[in-house]
């Protein structure tokens, strides 16, 4: 967060911006359902924070190592829920567990996400000298309410969150009066629910949204494969992870004086020129050699002892790096250079062991050097922090992608936000903590960025619906980085990002504050979605609490009033409707501009929209036809309404399917 807000244009030093207009989100309450909080963290100091908002009905629950005075005017609520977890985890022994049987955070994940969204200013923080600056939240004055529903299982050495506990936490948060609910959680892929309402988070979110609460969820870390995005209900704001314009170049100098800049969070001493090896069979040996990072342990120790080891891996998760580092360290090696595709999950190797990541091209350069000399050597210097250009913005490899596997016509993810190498508060118990702060990566970190932005927007527009906030964020998002350069999406090969990578694009808070028009949605719109998704009348009536009868024939999912148009099965012609509400100057005239997807015709009627004191909502029709003669993939375009001040942009994603319900592998 020492870079996030400057990068997004919400710097505290800017003379006039959204931050100041709304007193940094002072009266807004953000709820977090996660692993709890470390209340003593500087990120939750309440210096300069006013009285607790009057509508707050929550509380500060005591428990192990947690008393009600741990809360304050910043951290205004803390509760924990574990009945479901206990019912399902017979082996759990709360006396022996390292986790705290209270809202106190053992792992640090909940503390991290809460400080990203709403942390107070904490100046002069860095991660052992890296990523230095002021740690702060998107809405530094917003209030924080913690609902701990995720627990550390010592036996598994992992965290689990039982859905019945999450639902109870949502139920309580709705009662307590939060304005924004932030969930950096995801169902395990492959998805269980074949419909949104069988997904537990979606159930609680439906009722929260119906009561005006904005629900922001992580999109999941199962990318870059397609159709891996989770938390896909249309009433949820689903977040993808992008990088910042910041990296940590780590100089690797070869004996031929060539210097390569790898990436690492290496803060140990310089490793002077040291023998360099790529473990491979010299040709006449009967022993096993392997230069694959996950299989370095197969090499004889003498191969790696006292040396820096080069290895290659197809893995992008950090596990491969840490496994390689531990194999080399166990053999007495002094460092490891990992050639891989980008994983965007830099993590320091334990005990400041030098582990540097590079790509295959640079790895091959080093391999060439190793094979070209009798005694190859290498020097590794500590990592540095590099800000701004020429660092480009990418969608992180791990960020889950669309299309939405439950309903492809509902564009997911909705928006992208920085979620890579984010420095924020953590629990001192965390083994990566450096002075109570840590650098983490994941859509877990991207979601609270959006929660913080929504908190500022909520303070500016307190009467807007959750759908209006989503629309404002989506239709004003950057399709490029803040400097106008294309955003690439990391994947099996790097490509220009599209709506299935980052939804409307990279969040642009200043523009979202005054979007001009919004694609608003209320109960009727969600009912339309449920009818189109095939829910029967009695279930929907139960759901919404009054008798509801779906129209016959049932409505088209394409008419759900989203700030996007996604047609996954265009054959001949499709007609759909969208309705926009004017939230800008009362007398406004908007004209349409269409950038159609390749080979697709998009006709919008009318071509201009006139708003005045009596006309605040206007609908328009869109007719889409294809000229393609084959089943294609998705092509992307845009539909923009402009009054020359606001450009209300929605993505148009169309896939032609001449042959429907058809799968091919040709």
């Amino acid at each position, binding site marked *: 967060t020492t870079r996030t807000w400057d990068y997004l244009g919400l710097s505290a030093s800017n003379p006039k911006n959204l931050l100041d207009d709304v007193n940094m989100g002072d009266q807004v309450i953000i709820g977090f359902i996660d692993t709890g909080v470390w209340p003593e963290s500087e990120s939750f100091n309440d210096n300069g924070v006013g009285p607790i908002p009057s509508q707050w009905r929550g509380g500060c629950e005591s428990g192990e190592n947690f008393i009600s005075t741990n809360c304050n005017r910043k951290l205004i609520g803390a509760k924990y829920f574990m009945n479901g977890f206990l019912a399902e985890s017979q082996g759990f022994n709360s006396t022996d567990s390292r986790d705290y049987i209270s809202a106190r955070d053992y792992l640090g994940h909940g503390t991290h996400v809460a400080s990203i969204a709403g942390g107070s200013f904490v100046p002069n923080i860095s991660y052992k000298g890296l990523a230095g600056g002021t740690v702060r939240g998107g809405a530094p004055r917003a209030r924080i309410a913690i609902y701990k529903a995720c627990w550390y299982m010592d036996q598994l050495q992992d965290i689990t969150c039982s859905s019945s*506990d999450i639902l109870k936490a949502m139920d309580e948060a709705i009662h307590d009066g939060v304005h924004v609910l932030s969930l950096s959680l995801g169902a395990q892929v492959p998805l269980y629910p074949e419909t949104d309402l069988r997904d537990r988070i979606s159930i609680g979110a439906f009722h929260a949204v119906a009561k005006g609460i904005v629900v922001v969820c992580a999109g999941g870390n199962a990318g870059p494969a397609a159709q891996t995005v989770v938390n896909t209900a249309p009433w949820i704001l689903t977040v993808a992870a992008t990088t910042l314009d910041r990296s940590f170049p780590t100089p690797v100098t070869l004996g031929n004086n060539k210097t390569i800049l790898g990436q690492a969070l290496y803060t140990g001493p310089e490793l002077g020129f040291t023998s360099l090896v790529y473990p491979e069979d010299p040709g006449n040996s009967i022993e096993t050699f392997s230069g694959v990072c996950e299989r370095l342990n197969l090499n004889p120790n003498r191969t790696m002892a006292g040396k820096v080891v080069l290895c290659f891996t197809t893995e992008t998760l950090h596990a491969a790096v840490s496994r390689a580092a531990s194999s080399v360290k166990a053999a007495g090696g002094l460092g490891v250079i990992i050639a891989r595709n980008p994983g965007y999950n830099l993590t320091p190797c334990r005990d400041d062991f030098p582990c540097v990541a590079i790509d295959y091209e640079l790895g091959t350069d080093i391999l060439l050097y190793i094979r070209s000399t009798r005694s190859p050597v290498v020097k590794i210097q500590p990592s540095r922090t590099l800000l701004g250009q020429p660092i480009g913005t990418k969608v992180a490899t791990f960020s889950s992608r669309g299309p939405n596997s439950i309903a492809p016509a509902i564009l997911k993810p909705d928006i992208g936000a920085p979620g890579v190498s984010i420095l924020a508060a953590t629990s001192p118990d965390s083994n990566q903590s450096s002075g109570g702060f840590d650098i983490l990566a994941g859509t877990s970190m991207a979601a609270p960025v959006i929660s913080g932005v929504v908190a500022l927007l909520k303070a500016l527009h307190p009467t807007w619906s959750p759908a209006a906030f989503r629309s404002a964020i989506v239709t004003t998002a950057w399709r490029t980085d803040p400097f106008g350069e294309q955003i690439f999406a990391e994947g099996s090969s790097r490509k220009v990002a599209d709506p299935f990578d980052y939804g409307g694009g990279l969040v642009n808070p200043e523009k979202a504050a005054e979007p001009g028009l919004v694609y608003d949605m209320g109960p009727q719109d969600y009912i339309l979605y449920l009818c189109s998704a095939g829910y029967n009348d009695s279930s929907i009536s139960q759901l919404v609490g009054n008798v509801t009868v779906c129209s016959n024939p049932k409505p088209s999912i394409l008419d759900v009033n989203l700030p996007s148009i996604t047609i996954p099965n265009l054959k001949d012609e499709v007609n759909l409707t969208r309705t926009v509400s004017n939230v800008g100057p009362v007398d406004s005239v908007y004209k349409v501009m269409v950038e159609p997807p390749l080979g697709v015709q998009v006709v919008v009627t009318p071509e201009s929209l006139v708003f005045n004191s009596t006309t605040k909502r206007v609908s328009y029709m869109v007719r889409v036809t294809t000229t393609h003669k084959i089943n294609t993939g998705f092509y992307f375009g845009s539909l923009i309404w402009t009054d020359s001040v606001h450009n209300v942009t929605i993505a148009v994603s169309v896939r032609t399917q001449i042959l429907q319900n058809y799968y091919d592998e040709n």
Partner: protein
Amino acid sequence: AETSKVHIVYLGEKQHEDPEFVTESHHQMLSSLLGSKEDAHDSMVYSYRQGFSGFAAKLTESQAKNIADLPGVVHVIPDSLYELA
């Protein structure tokens, strides 16, 4: 004997403003299924009663199927685990 597992019985929007009343209705639904108030109390894990209506209870597969057929029940879904993202 069938093992019981936590299931979420989702009833949709609350039908009553008083949370106590809502919770009592959950207990009645459960005891009508399990046969006694004591069994219902032992089985109940949570009553959802603020933002929406429903409850979490330890049920066997057949009990889950039976309760799914009761009027007013939108879904009965087994508890599942979420992970940090």
